[in-house]
């Protein structure tokens, strides 16, 4: 039910509450926090990708005035802190003791009175390295005789990390044996970096008198980080307080625990003063959570125009430490969503991972882990299959979509899709684009020597982990929480276990409470990020805030509404069963004037409680979702390629998203446009690459390119709404849909311009030189 303007519950495009401080320059990001006596920590990073540490001499650095301490791996080893566990059950060096295993690896830390002095001191540390052969690709890593990267691990005699499979191999092989057409694609989803504008950092403050450890930290998951800190450091968990203040973008980059956090905390503990570490951009780019780096081979089997089988082989480059941020038991993440929006009866996926001399910490860059790669693979394969068959890519999709009446739909790899209307979303996109006319224009343009391409992507995501019995990170079940406190005057505070990094939780979650309890959204304050002050939760990533914490907020509102009913009955001297709820009040059935408002009830909860009922109107709900949610959409991109340079320009970009019920449509569209831009960046320019010696190319924003306003396309946004049947609000989550779905649409558009000449693949990013090389190969270059 829609709420009025004074309540502004779900469905209202309310301007955001959090804007007020950001607009005034009064945000409170980690680097904005200073404490008395605060010291600064800077990290010395390895210049080499693979080298043995012969010696570290810090004498001169320690002698520099203003330097308080130089910390090495040996010093940490004395406290059992030289290594830490990763999110994937591996180990990672905090400060290197034996070898450095990637360029940029943390070797030593300087703590000084100022960051300038600390940086000066880094230059004075003398490290003697014995350079070893670097391994910069997973193919090299798994080749016979490759240098062993993880010689620190007992029993690890190769660079192989994992083998993982999903689906039914035999059934899939049978489908391929019976197929009359097989379409295949080899493609590399390159390494990129989420690059939130704020780098990672922390301010650690161990109180020497009480032992209380407060860490202000760029964390997407403060509660999980507290637990991991307790395990790593051995500090009692109740004495650790993680505060994640305003966060300048996360996109997955702020999910892992980094050596800098551990060093700053250890330094504060040892020195007894607050220690701040703020990474510089180069450190952020070369050492923190990268994304993708996935070599993929896919094959699609068809009988006539029906897709009958799909098999995919994967090789992941995990860097020097297996630190992927993934649900524990899924070694290749949720890649097995690869059947996408299509009713493909058989599928099999197998993946292997390899150590290389590259940065660790594969993160889900604005997606559920590996869903972006999966979506890319199927959408590229389907588009190519249509070219091989000589039919329109939209037609092949429409013929093979899972139909609306097939939901709940169990995929060949075992996901149970909650709801969807894939033909509906595609039709909206095609109509909006004027698809048929555009196809005609494309032909005419081609006849005139111009290369226009139209690319589609009809993605299905899987987001909102748990259920906890299936999805865990480092053993922690993926539920989430909401605690609601309605005060006597009817104002409320909502405390969450998730943490916004720009998504607008302070507004969206207030609207959920407004919807459910009729308390105006202005009267609800949302608090998150402080582990001393919020219920335990797994954090914000994988589009899980609305699907999980949003559900928790709705559920606790409903629980409090039931208590409110008891109080209302007492106030109205009526039976509970005679009361009816409408937004913000209970009234006696048939007598709408006999009513009490939620504010009246809140006051009574503290002043006039019926006998036998506990005082107060507060509660907490831990929500373990019964299933994931499956947002979907159809994206359509039109490009024109310059035959002289290979440069391509987006002429149109239509995005139709279905994320179920929309709580704040303005915020939803903001999320989508941001994701479409990051998808464009990944398709067009964002590349972290390495030379043969393992040197990182892409270590500043001068080399690692991000889309600016100039080249970012104009977006045409549209929607369909198919609520999730198992979510209390029908919402599915939307923060990542566009990053997941859009790269394939951009690439398909470029390929579409060249498909008539036989081009079927160009690996991302589609830089001008790569496109020009493809043009040249098929004789289309000018």
């Amino acid at each position, binding site marked *: 039910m829609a709420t009025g303007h004074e309540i502004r519950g779900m469905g209202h495009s309310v*301007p*955001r509450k*959090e*804007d*007020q*401080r*950001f*607009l*005034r*320059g*009064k*945000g409170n*990001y980690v*680097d*904005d926090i200073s404490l008395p006596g605060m010291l600064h920590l800077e990290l010395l990073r390895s210049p080499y990708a693979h080298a043995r540490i012969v010696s570290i001499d810090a004498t*001169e650095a320690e*002698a*520099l*005035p203003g330097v308080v301490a130089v910390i090495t791996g040996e010093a940490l080893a004395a406290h059992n802190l030289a290594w830490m566990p990763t999110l994937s059950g591996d180990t990672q060096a905090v400060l290197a003791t034996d070898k450095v295993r990637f360029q940029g690896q943390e070797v030593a830390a300087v703590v000084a009175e100022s960051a*300038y002095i600390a940086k*000066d001191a880094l*230059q*004075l540390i003398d490290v003697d390295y014995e350079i070893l052969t670097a391994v910069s690709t997973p193919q090299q890593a798994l080749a016979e005789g490759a240098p062993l990267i993880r010689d620190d691990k007992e029993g690890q005699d190769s660079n192989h990390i994992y083998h993982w499979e999903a689906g039914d191999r035999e059934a899939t092989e049978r489908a391929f044996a019976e197929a009359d057409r097989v379409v295949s694609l080899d493609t590399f989803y390159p390494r990129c970096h989420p*690059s*939130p*504008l*704020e*780098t990672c950092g922390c301010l650690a403050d161990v109180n020497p008198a009480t032992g209380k450890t407060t860490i202000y930290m760029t964390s997407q998951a403060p509660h999980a980080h507290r637990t991991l800190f307790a395990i790593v450091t051995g500090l009692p968990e109740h004495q650790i307080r993680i505060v994640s203040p*305003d*966060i*300048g*973008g996360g*996109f997955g980059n702020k999910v892992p625990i980094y050596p800098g956090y551990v060093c700053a905390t250890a330094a504060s503990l040892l020195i007894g003063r607050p220690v701040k570490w703020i990474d*510089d*951009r*180069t450190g952020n780019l070369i050492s923190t959570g990268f994304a993708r780096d996935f070599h993929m081979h896919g094959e699609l089997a068809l009988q006539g125009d029906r897709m009958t089988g799909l098999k995919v082989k994967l090789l992941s480059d995990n860097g020097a430490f297996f630190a992927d941020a993934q649900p524990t038991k899924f070694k290749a993440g949720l890649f097995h969503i690869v059947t996408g929006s299509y009713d493909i009866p058989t599928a099999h996926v197998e993946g292997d991972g390899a150590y290389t001399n590259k940065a660790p910490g594969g993160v889900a860059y604005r997606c559920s882990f590996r869903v972006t790669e999966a979506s890319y693979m199927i959408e590229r394969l389907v588009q190519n299959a249509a070219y091989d068959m000589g039919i329109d890519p939209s037609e092949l999709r429409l013929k093979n979509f899972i139909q609306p009446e097939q939901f709940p739909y169990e995929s060949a790899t075992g996901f149970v899709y909650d709801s969807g209307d894939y033909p509906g979303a595609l039709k909206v996109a095609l109509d909006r684009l004027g698809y048929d006319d555009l196809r005609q224009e494309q032909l005419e343009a081609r006849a005139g020597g111009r290369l226009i391409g139209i690319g589609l992507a009809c993605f299905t995501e899987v987001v909102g982990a748990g259920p906890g019995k299936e999805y865990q990170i480092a053993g922690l079940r993926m539920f989430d929480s909401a605690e609601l406190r309605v005060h006597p005057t009817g104002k409320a505070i909502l405390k969450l276990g998730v943490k916004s*990094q*720009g*998504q*607008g939780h302070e507004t969206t979650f207030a609207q959920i409470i407004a919807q459910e309890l009729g308390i105006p959204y202005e009267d609800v304050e949302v608090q998150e990020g402080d582990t001393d002050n919020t219920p335990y939760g797994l954090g914000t990533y994988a589009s899980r805030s609305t699907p999980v914490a949003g559900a928790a907020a709705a559920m606790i509102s409903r629980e409090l509404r039931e208590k409110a009913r008891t109080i209302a009955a007492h106030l109205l001297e009526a039976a509970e069963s005679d009361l009816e709820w409408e937004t913000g009040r209970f009234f006696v059935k048939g007598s709408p004037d006999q009513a009490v408002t939620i504010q009246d009830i809140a006051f009574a909860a503290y002043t006039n409680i019926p006998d036998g009922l506990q005082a107060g109107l507060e509660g907490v709900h831990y929500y373990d979702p019964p299933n994931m949610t499956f947002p979907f959409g159809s994206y359509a991109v039109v490009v024109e390629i310059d035959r002289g340079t290979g440069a391509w320009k987006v002429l149109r970009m239509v995005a139709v998203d279905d994320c179920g019920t929309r709580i704040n449509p*303005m*915020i939803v*569209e*903001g999320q989508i*446009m*941001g*994701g*479409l*831009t*990051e998808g464009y960046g990944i398709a067009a320019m964002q590349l972290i690459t390495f030379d043969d010696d393992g040197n990182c190319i892409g270590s*500043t*924003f*001068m080399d690692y390119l*991000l889309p*600016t*306003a*100039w080249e*970012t396309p*104009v*977006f045409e946004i549209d929607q369909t709404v198919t609520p999730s049947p198992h979510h209390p609000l029908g919402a599915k989550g939307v923060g990542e849909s566009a990053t997941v779905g859009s790269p394939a649409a951009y690439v398909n558009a470029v390929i579409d311009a060249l498909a008539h000449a036989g081009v079927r693949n160009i690996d991302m990013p589609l830089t001008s030189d790569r496109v020009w090389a493809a043009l040249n190969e098929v004789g289309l270059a000018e």
Partner: protein
Amino acid sequence: MAIEAPVVTRTITVTVNGKARTAEVENRLLLVHFLRETLALTGTHIGCDTTSCGACTVLLDGVPVKSCTAFAVQADGMSIRTVEGLLGDAGLHPIQQGFHEEHGLQCGFCTPGMMLTAVALLEENPDPSDEEIRWAISGNVCRCTGYQNIVKAVHNAAARMREGS
């Protein structure tokens, strides 16, 4: 061999958001650190260290400058406007209102620099086209919004400022 470079300082006077501020600073102190740490104006952010992202943009004598790649001493005698100086007696500056109404910000980290660049544009060009806005802010990276709402926000502010003038 230990390097003990002597600390070289200089006294500078700058007008920051209308107020004269004098301080003795190290010659090598970056303008952004002078603003954030010496003057505690933390609304100016640091995003990249290489003049690429524009999070640290301030107006130096009215011109957008990336304060992560300027020394504080270079600003001696000049006037600086930071995000903290946008607020007027009448409340939010039109550019702040525009960003709020059009949802031109998400995480807020690029917002101060983005707004200051836009203010400089609007002082030169009170009615810019989409293309002129996109070109003007192309030295300021936003990772959250996709820019479309920022373009709308600048139009919103432009209309407000034209009405007000």
